[in-house]
């Protein structure tokens, strides 16, 4: 048997700043050329494992370790971060942060530069690696000229240039739209084929990673390894759901229909499913029993109207054009499309951060043209993607009260409003806490509360769940759903297919600054042309329904969501 390239032996680790160990009794061997997925909720210790492998622990984050960790046969304690970087190449989650050079070429050359590789040789090396990941025509580009997927290619090239034995990816999909995520997984697959390096992916978006074969899944929970088994076996059990990881959608659908998930089903990939005749029959029966339950929604009053909107940062090119839609009172709508399709620009126009070239934005029939940002804030609330970019007061109460203080509202009225808002957001028990004591999801609530306190009629959220695991995702989304049920109108910019399907009835699709569709989420995701144009990804439900001989995948998807809302929640 070959020797493992990475070997944890009863390993434990405690960060210097923390009272409790983050990792307990880890026993894990990873062999050359393997493909391993490490899954787990945030705080499960999965990123810490990654940091142990690449040497950030203990060299950048000191702490106390027990047991042994061998990387390429060598105790990491006695190695150095530099030595380890020749064995393990790490692609960080934040590709912007990882992009060090001023251009693509320089960035790829960063590691060889530090190794004092002569320039001639270095240029050849860069060309060769850039060719491998297909970025060779962009060597002169600056980071801001690249798309998210392209930056990922550069990051990958930057570590591949070392001829490492292990490629470690820390949440590679977090900031990518669905199609770019899929391409990334394909890219990793290809690099694995060409280099033969072991691939370790740390990610909680299971279904997206499983787009290409993974040999094993390591499931982490509270600093321990709960499961270490072949993908098919793990998917067959209930372990994933129990530990806050979402299983692939098609498997959930099969479970709902009463089909038992077993290894013989080949559950790793929707295209490879080995469904028996009776399984298909079972799914069809379930589908017909659910079908009756679907009903059409009634529209409320018109709230926000966008007519012939056009906008460009420079006079001749338009970032957005021909945008027309109406949002009705009490709706929850998602705005989807690839990175750079104009979604965020639309939000900026609605909030008044930018001025349209032509066209109108009106609320309840009143044109907003003359209103300043501040005036619009009274009826339109905008929540940024990252709560850390919004929170500017140390205490929760002060943060939520801020907008009211600015508007010069009397103290009593303010107190009443803040209390009421905190209660709506479930933050009342924490009202005197410092913001720093909260989790990411709770901080998100604080930012939403700080907007709600102004009593806007419509709230726009930019990527409300980006980078969140299933648990936090559910927490945030259920809260938003609750708000929606209390009558708030919510507009969400997202590229999360699940979110769009499960929580919003309607989706408005953008591509290259134009509106492509305005329809139900299920309809959008079951229309292959739309899916492709907007860089979305058709859901696996679509494939599953076709495989079971159901001819209206869109209705099947609606059944699934209807069932989930009725029976599961």
């Amino acid at each position: 048997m070959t020797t493992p390239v990475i070997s944890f032996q009863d390993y434990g680790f405690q960060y210097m700043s923390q009272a409790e160990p983050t990792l307990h009794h880890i026993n894990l061997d990873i062999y050359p050329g393997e493909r391993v997925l490490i899954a787990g909720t945030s705080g499960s210790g999965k990123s810490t494992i990654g940091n142990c492998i690449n040497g950030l622990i203990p060299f950048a984050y000191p702490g106390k370790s027990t047991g042994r960790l061998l990387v390429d046969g060598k105790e990491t304690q006695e190695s150095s971060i530099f030595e380890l970087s020749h064995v393990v190449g790490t692609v960080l989650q934040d590709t912007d942060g990882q992009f060090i050079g001023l251009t693509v070429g320089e960035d790829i050359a960063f590691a060889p530069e530090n190794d004092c590789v002569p320039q001639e040789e270095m240029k050849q090396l860069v060309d060769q690696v850039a060719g491998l990941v297909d970025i060779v025509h962009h060597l002169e580009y600056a980071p801001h000229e690249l798309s998210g997927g392209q930056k990922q290619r550069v990051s990958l090239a930057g570590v591949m240039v070392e001829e490492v034995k292990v490629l470690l990816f820390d949440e590679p999909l977090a900031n990518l739209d669905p199609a770019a995520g899929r391409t990334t997984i394909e890219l990793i697959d290809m690099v694995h084929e060409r280099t033969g390096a072991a691939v370790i992916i740390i990610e909680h978006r299971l279904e997206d990673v499983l787009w290409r074969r993974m040999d094993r899944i390591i499931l982490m929970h509270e600093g321990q390894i709960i499961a270490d088994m072949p993908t098919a076996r793990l998917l067959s059990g209930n372990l994933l759901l129990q530990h806050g990881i979402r299983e692939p959608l098609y498997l959930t659908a099969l479970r709902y229909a009463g089909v038992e998930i077993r290894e013989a089903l080949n559950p790793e990939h929707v295209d490879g499913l080995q469904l028996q005749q009776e399984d298909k029959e079972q799914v069809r029966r379930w589908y017909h029993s659910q079908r009756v339950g679907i009903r059409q929604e009634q529209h409320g009053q018109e709230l926000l109207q966008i007519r012939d909107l056009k906008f460009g940062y420079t006079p001749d090119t338009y970032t957005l054009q021909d945008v027309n839609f109406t949002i009705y009172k009490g709706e929850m709508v998602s705005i989807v499309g690839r990175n750079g399709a104009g979604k965020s620009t639309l939000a900026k126009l609605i909030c008044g951060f930018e001025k349209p070239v032509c066209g109108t934005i009106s609320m309840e029939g009143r044109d907003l043209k003359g209103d300043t940002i501040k005036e619009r804030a009274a009826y339109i609330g905008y929540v940024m993607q990252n709560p850390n970019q919004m929170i500017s007061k140390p205490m929760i109460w002060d943060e939520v009260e801020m907008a009211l203080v600015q508007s010069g509202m009397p103290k009593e009225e303010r107190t009443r409003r803040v209390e009421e808002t905190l209660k709506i957001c479930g933050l009342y028990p924490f009202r005197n806490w410092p913001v720093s004591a909260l989790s990411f999801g709770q901080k998100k609530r604080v930012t939403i509360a700080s907007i709600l306190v102004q009593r806007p009629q419509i709230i726009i959220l930019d990527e409300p769940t980006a980078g969140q695991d299933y648990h936090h995702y559910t927490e945030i989304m259920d809260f938003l759903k609750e708000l929606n049920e209390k009558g708030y109108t919510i507009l969400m910019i997202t590229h999360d297919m699940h979110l769009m399907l499960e929580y919003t009835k309607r989706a408005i699709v953008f591509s290259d600054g134009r509106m492509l569709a305005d329809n139900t989420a299920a309809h959008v995701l079951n229309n292959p042309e739309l899916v492709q144009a907007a860089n979305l990804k058709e859901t696996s439900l679509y494939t599953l329904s076709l495989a079971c001989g159901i001819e209206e995948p869109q209705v099947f998807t609606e059944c699934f969501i209807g069932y989930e809302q009725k029976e599961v929640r």
Partner: protein
Amino acid sequence: MAKVAILSYIRRESPVHALTGTTKLIFFLAWSVASMVTYDTRVLLCMLMISAVVFKISRIRIRDISIVLGLAAVFLLLNNLFVYLFAPEYGVELYESRTVLFTIAGPYTVTLQQLFYHLNMTMKVICVVPVALLFIACTDPSEFAASLASIGVSYRIGYSVSLALRYIPDVQREYHNISQAQQARGIDLSGKDKLFTRLKNSVAILLPLILSSLNRIETVSNAMELRGFGKNKKRTWYVKRKMQRNDWLTIGFVAVVLVIDLVVTFWDGSRYFNPFV
């Protein structure tokens, strides 16, 4: 987001652009020394003409750098004004003669010697400014770090400069986004509020910005370490260009200028050229 570039690299084809960063850095440093040392009007006049020629060759237009030029002019004016206010007779002392042109009030008399001193001082600045601006406008930022390292500055320092250049646009973009979102919460940064309120309000933007920048620094430094930054005493550079014939010619030229400058200036034991005695 509209981009306002006050002073940055301007990509053009010119003999000045074609020189390596190292050459330009050496030229700039030697030129600065030469003009700082001398008060000799003849030398300064020659250097001024050379500066103008170099500027012409670089194909950078005045309006590309008009904002900075304007600022430089204002500082130069202020500088002259204050020198005169505090030492109206300095020129007389230097040139050991006194030719009164007219009197303003009290001790403030305008003498030919003082005017001559101001002329020299101004010429010194005018010699350096175009060369300094050209250094920035014609050197690819990628080459900054490499050229600093090649004259013996530690590559860590050189790389900090280059990283700052890399992240300035990102931080600007983030500042813009945060400030818009905070404005939507009633934070007003326009001139309407009192100064104190405005300062207090700017904290609402700066605090999140600083926190997120600190985060970014952690990521970047991790990313750099993971790719071996700081491993060796030296490193090689992907973007560094080989010295060409023109580079050596330029360095030779500026060396000659510096030598002539020093010889002419100190020939008679004084830094000042004195036409009055």
